[in-house]
């Protein structure tokens, strides 16, 4: 099978489809029963209404079943989240600095870029901080985000499993150019990345202000 951009994508999509699947069944059930009742027990048919004050059995059932369902939803969401937070110790660390309205990426060898370059299949650990207002580092294709806040180092991890370029957006409102605070994460084959990483002269970009 064609692999997703990260294996976490499949996890999130599964949790999403699981919850949405159950929800669609519930929604269609509720709607269908309601419409059926409105026709079946319509006043035009002239039958006498019957006062039913409740039913312990029914009410217990429709508390118990949803309880089990939502607990299972919680569980899958939790497992998926644990997977996201489980960042191996040997992950490659990149510092992310957010400012109105751009991103800087600082690598362990001192290289600084405006776009995030990462090697295929290598776990990445982003340590993120803002120099001004709240931002949020969001890679929709990877289904991950984490806020970037001044005075706080928030962490986000992923392991790219497909070569390509993916959009990075700012998801926390940060003022005038919030919607234009896009950059890219570029996933390269390992060897190509090594070459790029070793060359500290060519692609390094100085941040505009320290």
């Amino acid at each position, binding site marked *: 099978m064609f692999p997703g951009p990260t294996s976490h994508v499949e996890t999130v999509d599964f949790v999403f489809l699981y919850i949405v699947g159950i*929800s669609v069944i519930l929604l269609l059930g509720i709607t269908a029963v309601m419409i059926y009742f409105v026709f079946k027990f319509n006043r035009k048919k002239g039958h006498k209404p019957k006062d039913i*004050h409740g039913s312990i059995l029914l009410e217990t059932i429709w508390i118990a079943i949803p309880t089990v369902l939502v607990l299972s939803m919680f569980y899958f969401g939790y497992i998926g989240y644990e997977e996201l937070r489980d960042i191996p110790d040997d992950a490659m660390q990149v510092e992310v600095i957010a400012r109105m309205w751009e991103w800087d990426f600082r690598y362990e060898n001192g290289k600084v870029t405006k776009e995030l370059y990462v090697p295929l299949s290598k776990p990445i650990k982003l340590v993120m901080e803002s120099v001004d207002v709240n931002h*949020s580092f969001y890679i929709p294709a990877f289904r991950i985000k984490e806020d970037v806040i001044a005075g706080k180092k928030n962490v986000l991890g992923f392991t790219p499993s497909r070569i390509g370029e993916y959009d990075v957006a700012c998801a926390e409102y940060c003022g005038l150019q919030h919607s234009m605070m896009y950059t890219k994460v570029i996933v390269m084959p390992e060897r190509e990345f090594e070459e790029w990483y070793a060359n500290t002269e060519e692609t390094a970009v100085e941040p505009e202000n320290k």
Partner: protein
Amino acid sequence: MANGTIAANGKTFYEEGTTKAKTGLTAWIFSTDHKRIGLMYLSAISIFFSAAVIIALLMRLELIAPGKTIMEPQTYNSLFTLHGVIMIFLFIIPGIPAVFGNFFLPLQIGAKDVSFPRLNLLSFWIYIIGAFLVLLSLALPGGPIDTGWTFYIPYSVRSGTNISLAIFAAFVLGFSSILTGLNFITTVHRLRAPGMSWFKMPLFVWATYATAWIQIIATPVIGITILLVIIERFFGVGIFDPALGGDPILYQHLFWIYSHPAVYIMILPAMGVVSEIIPTFARRTIFGYRAIAMSSLAIAFVGYLVWAHHMFTSGISDAARIIFSLLTFIVALPSGVKVFNWVATMYKGSIDPKPPFLWVMSFIVLFSIGGLTGLVLGSLATDIHLHDTYFVVAHFHYVMFGGTGTIFFAALYYWFPKMFGRLYNTKLANIGVALFFIAFNLLYFPKFILGYMGMPRRYYDYLSEFTSLQLISTIGSWVMAIALIIVIGNIVHGIFRGPKSTSNPWGGVTLEWHTSSPPPLENFHEIPTVTHEPYDFSQLEEMKNE
């Protein structure tokens, strides 16, 4: 009737006031009659609602295509902030309690008025002053606020717009909410008619009562938070601003400790209205009365414990995220119980799907979609992806507008004959509901898809891949405008030109239907003694002789 003196004059509250002046503006703005106060809220709220709708239409027009369409980004940022501030603080939080709670809570428990009528008038005036301050913050130099309705720090510290005044307006509005809550709680405790035990109270009263507790317990938190922000801004004390050594996450905690329970201030009264309308039009008792009443209280209390689900990506600890996710799923359960009980109430009824009932059917579908998509957001793995995207925007519009907004109209269409003694056009009302439902889904459903595709919220501009869904949503906003014109126009026309209504056109049995339409000044010619359960339709026969 035995004591014919009061009954004899037969005047409605429109013809008789609590003020010296019998007619004109002063007879309204100084009236302590809960019904007049309710109607004054209705007029004020309608104006603010319309303004926020027009703002939304402008935003949707801007978003019809990528790039600039009609406005600059700064204007757009101010507009989405204003839309949120007006809709939340001036329309949906006061909304149903201030209008229908004021008008119908005393009627439904067989009281002459609320416990503190003058305090009630004060609440209204504080509300107007708060609203005036919001307007003032637009006009003063500095310009309209551009921070989003959440006023997140540090952006709200850095923004040069009139933040202090706007949040002070929210502070003032909070007092209106607290005083109304206090008044309702006391009224329910002290002024129930003879025979009305707690479990004979209509469910709208239960819901308003539970809401009132949230209003008085949660609202002070936002008041204190706003004061702290003002202290920080004017005295440079570092509380929230990292530049001063403060903690911006602390602000988010405090903000949501109020604003999440506030979500239940918005939805609980609407749920109460649903529990009134379904029995009346199904002409049978509500299914699971106690479960519905108790689930209101359960929501009111568990609702305090889930605030941090607005902060799953803010960097709070993993343990906190997991606990708040679990609690979020738990708080969904009482709402589910209510939906099942409502549908069960239709079983073996004698259903007459008049316009208020159609509004409720529309509500059940829209609110269920809103609630179920809330589960997607309560789950950690999916929320990390969807937080702060259009998915959230779609979700809360389904809950707030599809839920509370729809029921605001349902309540208006249900209690209209009682409030105004007239009727609206039924055929047009049916068309209004249907068109509203279609427009609503056209306007908001594409936003779920956009959100999952990765479109963040509060974006002036967007990537070209989002264009077609944005276009559908904008078209939906135009259909919605037409639907609202029909829905509101029908009401306005009905108030002035509608045919006269009988005192109980739907065959309701709660106490407000035991008096004339519109009711007299002190509601009842004779305070009723309650002998029946709230939704016991065997009373209908005896009521014919009243």
